[in-house]
């Protein structure tokens, strides 16, 4: 395993800038997740690292070596795609062994057997080794696809939304597996997704991408608690952070140029109003089983927050609202801090 460094990498497709002056370091043994919506440049970044695309500017260094102009095969990376691509006529064992048996490697069959056995155990598919790839469920196929990357010991694993084609339950299972495997192997992983839960739960560090630019990088807790702008603040958290106009909460002490106040659900205290000077009114309560989402109108602004199911609030109730840890943003979206 080794460190990956991108320096000033830019990639254009005709008039579109897919990746703009991206500098990024993935440390040895780190699990870095690039988070962003469709079109943010996530997959292009992975493909640049793998050598499937050539940058228009900038450098890619892997394990201290400049690989910018190297062919994909010379780069020592392993790629897991969103859609599992297995050889249907081969058994699970042979699918897993395939990368080790390439002529360039010439591993002994004995070593192949040991390595495939180890990885199959890690992924809990050791009882499927003799099955054909076509006899597997979707989740098992995706495990084999991940396994085919893991049998190798490349400098870095590159993963492009490998869980997004799976159903919710399997995704939750594989999230934990993947994190465990990464820890056990001490693997360096660059992983891209648009799913905030995957980013929050697996990453040692998250890089938030917007239109090809890296907006912020940090641990999940840093990104969640201390976003640099409204874009990052809105990407993480469920229910999403409430971004309300400054004028809606005149009582909050804020820096003078504040245009928007960001309030996460855990920083809102909502009580039934007793004195008649209510700040808001309950518009709708969404029962999601484990949580209730309370929709409250404050003047013209809708605020959504979690509420205890025993809070005794009903639609139409007048409520008082306290804000405990607001975040401040300028009109540009940039984060502001109180002096």
């Amino acid at each position, binding site marked *: 395993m080794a460190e990956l460094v991108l320096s000033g990498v830019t990639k254009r497709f005709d008039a579109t800038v897919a990746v703009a002056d991206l500098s990024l370091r993935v440390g040895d043994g780190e699990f870095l997740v690039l988070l962003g919506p469709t079109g943010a440049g996530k997959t292009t970044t992975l493909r640049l690292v793998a050598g499937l695309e050539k940058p228009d500017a900038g450098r890619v260094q892997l394990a201290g070596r400049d690989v910018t102009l190297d062919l994909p095969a010379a780069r020592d990376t392993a790629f897991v795609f969103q859609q599992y691509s297995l050889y249907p006529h081969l058994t699970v064992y042979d699918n897993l062994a395939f990368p080790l048996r390439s002529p360039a490697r010439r591993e002994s069959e004995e070593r192949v057997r040991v390595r495939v056995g180890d990885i199959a155990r890690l992924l809990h598919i050791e009882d499927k080794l003799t099955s054909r790839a076509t006899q597997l469920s979707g989740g098992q196929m995706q495990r084999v696809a991940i396994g085919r990357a893991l049998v190798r010991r490349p400098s870095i694993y590159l993963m492009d939304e490998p869980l997004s084609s799976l159903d*919710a339950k399997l995704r939750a299972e594989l999230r*934990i597996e993947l994190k465990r495997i990464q820890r056990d192997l001490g693997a360096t992983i660059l992983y891209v997704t648009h799913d905030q839960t995957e980013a929050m739960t697996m990453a040692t560090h998250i890089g938030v991408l917007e239109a090809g630019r890296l907006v912020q990088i940090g641990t999940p807790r840093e990104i969640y608690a201390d976003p640099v702008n409204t874009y990052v603040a809105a990407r993480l958290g*469920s229910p999403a952070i409430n971004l309300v106009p400054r004028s809606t909460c005149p009582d909050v002490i804020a820096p003078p140029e504040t245009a928007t106040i960001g309030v996460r659900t855990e920083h809102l205290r909502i009580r039934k109003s007793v004195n008649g000077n209510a700040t808001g009114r309950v518009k709708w309560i969404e029962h*999601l*089983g*484990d949580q209730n989402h309370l929709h409250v109108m404050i003047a013209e602004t809708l605020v959504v927050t*979690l509420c205890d199911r025993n809070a005794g609030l009903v639609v139409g109730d007048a409520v008082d609202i306290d804000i405990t840890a607001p975040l401040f943003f300028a009109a540009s979206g940039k984060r502001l801090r109180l002096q």
Partner: protein
Amino acid sequence: MAEIRVENLHKSFGAFSALRDSTFTVPNGDFFCLLGPSGCGKTTTLRMIAGLELPTSGRILLGGEDVTFKRASQRDIAFVFQLFALYPHMNVRTNIAYPLRSQSMLRDEVNRRVNEAARILRITHLLDRSVSGLSSGDRQRVALGRAIVREPLAFLLDEPLGALDAEFRDVMCGELRALHDRLKATTVYVTHDQLEAMAMADTIALMNRGMVEQLGTPQDIYDRPASLFAADFIGSPPMSFLPFRGRVTPGDRTVRVGDVDIALPEIREGREDSELVLGVRPEHIELSSSAPLRAEVVDAEYLGTTQIVTLNTRAGASIKARIPAEIQIRPGEHTGLTLRPGLLSLFDRASGRALRTALHDGPAHG
């Protein structure tokens, strides 16, 4: 608008029964979700209500009228498919108006309805645009517009959000529910996504292997799952299970799981010595170092407001707890679990069915 009643509906494809003897009523104005995994019979049920499939046996009543063997076109129902089938060479207005043109309606009335549908869906500014340039969300709005203009007795929607990406699905969930609240139209909605069903439905029919496994409000199914299947299908993460062997008697207020007594709602239905399962939702678990039910932390997943902790008990059960994000916890750590007794469920392992407890008391759950 009208009530939809499905009576003893059965559908076989050769030797395979897609739907077995299902009976339920969709009340007038209800947002009703048919929820279940793929192959459970939910889409087949919807297609029979629409008249796109004929049942092998059973009856379908729409607004009191038996429509079981009526053609789809004779049922006053609008169907919205998963893949929005729009006419690419027509603009938004013509696409929305299409179902009315084919009914040879007067032009003024067509315009009135198209404008009204566009206003409700907030796509008035798109009416003269070509559909080919639209975002997936706007395309889905146009598809909905085509259903709305018909002013049908009921709307049937087959995974209408399935093709959208996750972020946008949330937005559309809110919009669809708000739309329903404005139109108050009877709606049957098919999905495999329990979060969509929980967020939107008045009533959920949870289906499994061609049968309705449980029928109820989202909160009811969440709090009182009728079976292990329901408990496991609903919730993210789903209910955790503590299997144990034991005997329970009506009036018991605790069960003995391994060597630990756990309080639960008073038992109303007894079992001789048998394999039982205690079910607990992630948010009803607290970690406390002194609690006698011991477990080892396998993983902690930080989610911002909360975290999901995965633990293994000594007996080997895997448990998921949702606790505040501030609590520091590390894999490998040993801890105790306190289960809040009020909403614990008890199941018979062999049948998979829930045993009756004080949780099921009260008029609504008679």
